[in-house]
């Protein structure tokens, strides 16, 4: 009926809003495109605060660590970024998708 829907994403955004109200810097990562067998569909979200705490997911746990590291820079500068992960990525030796899929992520600051 609705394979693209991720009901839990709303709760993840509630957490982002709560952190922001507490005065915490917050970044939101959203899966915008996937190729091959990527574990989470477009629209899946991960929210990160300046302390490095996070909720939600953009993969099966393979790339969250890298996205959380990138988020620190996004929170500091306010500049959004588009991240690409996959087997062809130069980061694949360290960070990649074991499933062989590829994923594009939009990472922005909640301002």
């Amino acid at each position: 009926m609705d394979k693209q829907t991720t009901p839990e994403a709303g709760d993840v955004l509630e957490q982002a809003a709560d952190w922001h109200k507490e005065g915490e810097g917050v970044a939101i990562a959203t899966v915008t495109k996937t190729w091959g067998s990527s574990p989470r569909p477009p629209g899946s979200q991960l929210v990160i605060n300046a302390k490095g705490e996070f909720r939600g997911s953009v993969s099966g746990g393979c790339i969250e660590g890298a996205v959380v590291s990138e988020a620190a820079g996004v929170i500091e500068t306010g500049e959004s970024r588009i991240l690409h992960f996959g087997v062809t990525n130069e980061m694949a030796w360290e960070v990649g998708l074991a499933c062989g899929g590829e994923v594009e992520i939009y990472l922005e600051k909640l301002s």
Partner: protein
Amino acid sequence: MKAGTLDRLLADRRAKRSVALVTRLEDGFAALLHPGDRAAEGVPREVVVEALRALAKGQSLPFEQDEGTYFIRSFIPDPRMVIVGAVHIAQSLAEMARLAGFHVVVVDPRQAFARSDRFVGIEISTDWPGQALEELELDRRTAVVTLTHDPKLDDPALDAALASPAFYIGSLGSKKTHRARLERLASRGFAEADRERIRGPVGLSIGSVTPAEIAVSILAEVIGALRSGSS
């Protein structure tokens, strides 16, 4: 995204309104669109049309346009599960279904069962099932599960469920109980096509024994129906 946009988005979600968040990836410009909206400030007409089409299907996807790439993130209200019978299995099922993203309502006019200390954080109705289900306006994103075994509670719930487009209707009981239930439905004038909508014995056949295990089998069957659109 601006905090004000996020607040309006969350207000829509809490009010169970469908909403699409449209973000231009080049500069982070974001706008919200709702079913029936004709336009959104700063969003090109063709992006509005595409966003409303995606929202109607509950899809999230990128949309390439001359001006740049937009990402359309659809938020539609959570599916609902209405559980008739605030029994032991219902305690496990309500909690598991909530974790799986369902808005859960437990219906039981027996106030000794339908107590908030037995169903912490779960919506409870102590109206008679027929009336309760009518007021809940069962739609095609609602599942109905009856667990009482008691015809005077289960049957009015099944009547209401069969009169609705609910995507899943399941009824607890042995094969014998289910046969008797189907005979009663036939005598009340329900056609075979209606009676076949009821899953009974309820749940996937995984040899469940305990209430929690039975809840797993029911929830798995409900999710299967939701995701396959086999309703």
